[in-house]
């Protein structure tokens, strides 16, 4: 609408420089209430996980069968589990496994997806065609099922689980990155750079990559939340970490047998997962608003 574009032009004229480097980004994130809430939650979770050995009041693996399934008390703030282990300590140590695995897998799929997507989008032609057929086949398949199948063949275990998830989840990034690369390639400044005599490598590194960074960062944040949930789900099915290691999904798996006697065992790990995922989702949402208002 002509009227709205007129107003938009007006708004743009009045607006100060939207993004002024990392310092400006930080200020905007803090100003955005959603992003700030997410940032606080994610920071608290990460600090909790990193400092778990110092923060945890007890050894998470020491059993005390005489005091099993205890309700919260001064000694055990969140109570004890079916083997008498301190629930709070297990939650804190569990964060190291759950959150760090999600982050590691997130980073791995980000790298794979970025490389494959950039290659596909920049090379075009046969390379692009082959990669996209592979992506189509993998996408023609729910990722969780595929991860189930891979773990099914490799056998349960945290490493296998991480491998399976990496093998499956990179596709989303590859597709997004390829789409973004194609869009950036169409933008006039890329042609302008080509007209100056720049080669493909310079264009990829100096023009394409910086211009796709924001949506990729947003997706990475939201994707990490999804990974955390999927990881918990697969662990819950007994396909991830085996006992006695503390991990949120497998803690829920253990707790489900004591639903009637100690429902709090189902509460804490679930709450931990939900809060962490919520923090990541809030942060991703806020980042999207700040970095790229045009993104959905």
């Amino acid at each position: 609408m002509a009227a709205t574009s007129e107003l938009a032009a007006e708004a743009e004229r009045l607006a100060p420089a939207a993004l002024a480097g990392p310092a400006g980004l930080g200020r905007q994130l803090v100003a955005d209430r959603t992003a700030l809430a997410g940032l606080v939650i994610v920071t608290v979770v990460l600090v909790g996980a990193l400092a778990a050995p110092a923060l945890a009041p007890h050894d998470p693996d020491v059993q005390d069968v005489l005091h099993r399934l205890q309700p919260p008390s001064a000694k055990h703030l969140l109570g004890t589990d079916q083997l008498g282990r301190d629930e709070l300590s297990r939650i804190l140590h569990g964060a190291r496994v759950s959150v760090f695995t999600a982050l590691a897998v997130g980073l791995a799929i980000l790298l794979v997806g970025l490389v494959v997507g950039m290659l596909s989008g920049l090379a075009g032609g046969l390379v692009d065609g082959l990669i996209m057929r592979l992506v189509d086949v993998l996408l023609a398949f729910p990722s969780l099922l595929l991860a189930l199948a891979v773990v099914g063949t490799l056998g349960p275990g945290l490493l296998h689980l991480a491998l399976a998830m990496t093998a499956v989840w990179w596709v989303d990034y590859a597709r997004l990155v390829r789409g973004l690369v194609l869009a950036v390639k169409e933008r006039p400044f890329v042609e302008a750079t080509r007209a100056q005599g720049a080669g493909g490598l310079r264009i990829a590194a100096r023009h394409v990559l910086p211009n796709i960074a924001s949506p990729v960062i947003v997706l990475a944040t939201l994707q990490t939340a999804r990974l955390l949930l999927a990881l918990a789900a697969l662990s819950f099915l007994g396909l991830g970490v085996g006992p006695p290691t503390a991990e949120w999904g497998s803690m829920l798996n253990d707790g489900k047998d004591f639903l009637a006697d100690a429902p709090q065992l189902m509460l804490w790990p679930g709450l931990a997962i939900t809060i962490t995922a919520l923090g990541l989702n809030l942060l991703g949402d806020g980042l999207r608003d700040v970095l790229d208002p045009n993104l959905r």
Partner: protein
Amino acid sequence: MSAPLLAVEDLTVTFATARGPIEAVRGVSFSVAPGERVGVAGRSGSGKTVSALSITGLLAPTARVSGTMRFAGGDAGGPRSRERRALRGRHIGMIFQDPLSSLNPTLTVGAQIAEPLRAHMHLSRAAARSQAVDLLGQVGLPDANRNVDEYPHRFSGGMRQRAMIAMALACEPTLVIADEPTTALDVTIQAQILELLVEQCEQRDTALLLITHDLGVLAGVAQRIVVMHEGRIVEEAAVDDLFRRPGHPYTAAMLADLALPRRTQADGGRRTPPLLEVTDLTKAFPIVRGEAVRRTVGAVRALDGVSLTVEEGRTLGIVGESGCGKSTLARCILRLVEPSSGGVSFAGRDVLDCDRRELRALRREMQMVFQDPFGSLDPRMTVQQILAEPLQIHGVARSRRARFKRVAELLAMVGLEPEHAARHPRAFSGGQRQRIGIARALATEPALLVLDEPVSSLDVTTRAQILALLEDLQARLGLSYVFVAHDLSLVRSISHRVAVMYLGRIVEIAGRDELFEHPEHPYTQALLSAVPVPDPVRERRRRRIALRGEVQAATVTARGCRFAPRCPRAQPRCTAEDPALLPTRADDHRAACFFPGPAAIHEEVA
């Protein structure tokens, strides 16, 4: 004057924004008599569109509107009242700027025209449909019976705007408001649409409120003109008076913008050796279908045997409507798009036959300036980085210090300040950004600049400044230009020689004054006659050359003259043979037509 049809009193519109209220319209009063054609002129941000939208109560809820409005003798209520809404579609029809985005993509054109008929006239489905077919016929849409069931995306821009007009006229309203109805269209289509609007309104005795940034458009259409500036009416006058004796300096400035300064010396006696030679250049784009299995089902000839030369220190203007291949030509010259066949030679070197390294070296000497000053600068870079990039690519000014010095030089050259180097592109206006684009092109001291619509997205005043800068740079640095534009007046302002393109071919090429004063090709003549003249008296007397239909894409298999299907002079020979580009009046005035010559009277219509 009889009792006004529409009377707006003391209209004020304020938008609440995050930075406080913005007054878009401040105390505006005007009226429209029954059957009268009133033009509202103003640059963007003058409040003209906001005023029009408030008449029909279509402003966003964030707008605060005050003032009164009377329509057909009765009170038209508040801006969001039931009375105001009842006028929409029934008594006031509206036409918008962009006919593509203004039509719903998921409904057929017929269904969208039938909607107001069913809502206001309570017609049955069948009656509304047949009425829609009638309306489409009246607005000159070919094959209305079939097209009524098509979706908008199947239509060309001109056809879509015709459909919009049919929709606005559907319920026989007494007033039609058209907001920049031809801004998105090519000049020959603009002429058709304006003519249709006037003709339809006259037939129905419908009043027309035409809103535009282009005073030239109003000269032949409006009877009275209202000029708006910064939310206020600065002048209101009958069309003849306004053009003859503009009463307000702002109006005078708008009129002055219409007449661009012209290079004094056209293609005078000076002869210099050719710097760029293009011979028989052809580019075919395949039409690809399918996803799993891609197959080529045909090809479109974007360029079809184009030959031209550009001499040192001179400007060749290339003009044509959208789809004529002028942008493809610009890109093929620089090998940004790989031509299918033909030759490009630059300073004696074969551009098409050099490897990557040689091409990179060549690009140091041939540079391009792009249309979109917003998109063609990387938003993540500072101006320093943008201007230093070509220096790094070509290894000139190797030290940091040398690059800083060169960037400062370049900025000064295009009239910007050295401290601008640290800022990002978004901190600049469109005109300033285009200056940065020009500075970037000049960084490696090229001999040739290919300019693709370099000022088309700028406002009229900035246009003149950029053109002046380009002329100044040419004089100082001895640059050669290939200047591509769809706007005849721009090309006329800056070029030494001009080539006119139609569907991938050059149909006429000559020295600038020769071409504009003695056009030989019927397409050139039609193009020139379609440009509105900012002189109501001449505009009323003027006869336009009627062109049939719109541009169709030329597939490889097409034969004969590409213009023949629309040409008033077409003979059987024209569709059988290709006319060559041959000398006509003078040796260096060439036209590709079997029947060149001045336009005859019978080709023109009133």
